[in-house]
């Protein structure tokens, strides 16, 4: 965050250039776990986005109050509070989503994206900028998740659940296929491995390569994994205090 950005840039950086999943490689675990259907992916993305925006706002507002030495526990308390609120809402109004997301909904507490943005952005920037950053990062997370889910679901089951909170349709219903799926209908068959973990990793890798290519074509550096700039632990890092950069 060397140069000052406009609010528009704070939002748009989360989409591709600093996409939390594809470029910063944060939140990998829920990404791989829930990206098996579009419905789950959107549900997870929205839930994480709400938590991210709220926690960014609160942490940014409290950034001068929270003592530096105990800030991580303080962030976790704030994040956990919002996750609990979101979880109770989902349980009440979308019980089927709660059932399919399972443990990954409460696990948003330890999602690296949220803690990473709190540590890397909200504790250094104003409330408005932090809120916009949360929206951008959340949207970027949701887009990446949905894209992955679309690829995995289509090839893995030959179907797409174009649903939000149970409303909507599926690809097989659009083509009136009944019990069969789209891939079988055109003479192929679903490639089950896409739904399984190896297919998740494979899709993840391909999308990361594409995101790198897009960012590179816009003149951005290939990856932002090196240097202390992108590292969420930069502020507490002992090596940085000594004036060195770590191997990563």
């Amino acid at each position, binding site marked *: 965050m060397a140069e000052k950005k406009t609010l528009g840039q704070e939002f748009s950086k989360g989409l591709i250039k600093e996409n939390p999943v594809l470029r910063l490689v944060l939140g990998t675990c829920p990404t791989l776990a829930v990206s098996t259907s579009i419905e789950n992916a959107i549900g997870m993305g929205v839930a994480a986005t709400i938590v991210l925006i709220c926690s960014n706002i609160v942490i940014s507002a409290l950034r001068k109050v929270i003592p530096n030495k105990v800030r991580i526990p303080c962030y976790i308390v704030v994040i956990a509070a919002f996750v609990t609120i979101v979880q109770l809402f989902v349980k009440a109004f979308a019980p089927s989503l709660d059932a399919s997301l399972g443990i990954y909904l409460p696990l948003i507490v330890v999602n690296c994206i949220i803690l990473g943005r709190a540590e890397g952005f909200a504790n250094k920037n104003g409330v408005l900028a932090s809120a916009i950053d949360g929206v951008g990062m959340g949207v970027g997370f949701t887009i990446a998740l949905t894209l992955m889910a679309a690829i995995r679901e289509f090839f893995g089951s030959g179907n797409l659940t174009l649903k939000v909170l149970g409303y909507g349709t599926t690809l097989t219903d659009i083509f009136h296929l009944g019990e069969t799926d789209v891939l079988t209908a055109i003479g*192929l*068959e679903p*490639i*089950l*491995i*896409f739904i*399984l973990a*190896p297919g998740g990793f*494979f899709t993840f890798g391909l999308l990361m390569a594409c995101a790198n290519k897009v960012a590179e074509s816009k003149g951005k550096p290939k990856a932002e994994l090196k240097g202390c700039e992108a590292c969420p632990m930069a502020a507490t890092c002992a090596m940085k205090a000594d004036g060195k950069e770590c191997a990563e």
Partner: protein
Amino acid sequence: MELNNKLTVSASPHVKSAETTTGIMLDVIIALIPAGIASIFVFGARALAVIAVAVICCVLAEFLSRKAMKREQTIGDLSAVVTGLLLAYNLPSNMPLWEVALGSVIAIVVVKQMFGGIGQNFVNPALLARIVLMSAFPARMSAGAFVGLNNTGWDVDGVTGATPMGLITLADGIKDGAPNLMQMFIGTTSGCLGEVSALALILGGIYLIIRKVINPIIPCAYIGTVAIITLIAFGDVNAMLYEILGGGLMIGAIFMATDYTTSPITNKGKFIYAICAGLLTCLIRLFGSLPEGVSFSIIIMNILTPLIENATKPTIFGTVKEKKNKEADA
């Protein structure tokens, strides 16, 4: 590593050999021909189609991926042909051809070229493609989905039966309806294309050993380990021979486990590698839920090969052997 053709700087001894990658691959292809003929004889023209699609797609995938990555062309070394043949030999004859093509692309592009091309793959490309296809289309490649005997026609969907490996269990021994040992030796059983005929595979193996393309340690130690363990487990010579001749053991031990890139260099390392592969194969076959475990055992040992190499590093001539320290194992 940049190779410079003009000047070769290397440590002694400076022995020159006429051996080339293309020559070795050609020998492997020649050694694989008997098994191919046996598979066409057993499964009919559909087998030939699977082999042709796999080979053509592998070569095409290699050509296109090298072109896309702007690297020098390597299809001349015939390694893609070998991968295609091995992949086809690891698939049932009723596999849809587009799935065969998909497997070829996975073997060449994902396993081989993405890791740097020939000599850089971390596991055997054909075997990993087989495992991917197994998890991608379980209904096609699970036991019982294979084409039964005397079904050499083109449209073979629906006429399926259990493979020999599905007809033997530790508890019951060889079940009724299993082929006899002579059938299994010649190859008139069901299964993947290349694995049915032990005779054809052994012929190919002997050719490779005579031509010094492969070292006999890996196949002998691998098959020997399986023989000893199954003999102890079943207490029956017939069951032992059945386990050795059935399934993918012969093709795995002779053609897959001996891949240069993914097997240890030293003789000691080769022994460890082959014996561990044999142990794993027996564990999966006798106690696992899958009837056959050759492909998984070889892949696991491929991944462990760097560790074996590290542990069996020979001492340099003229130096005193270092005392064993913890680092040598790590």
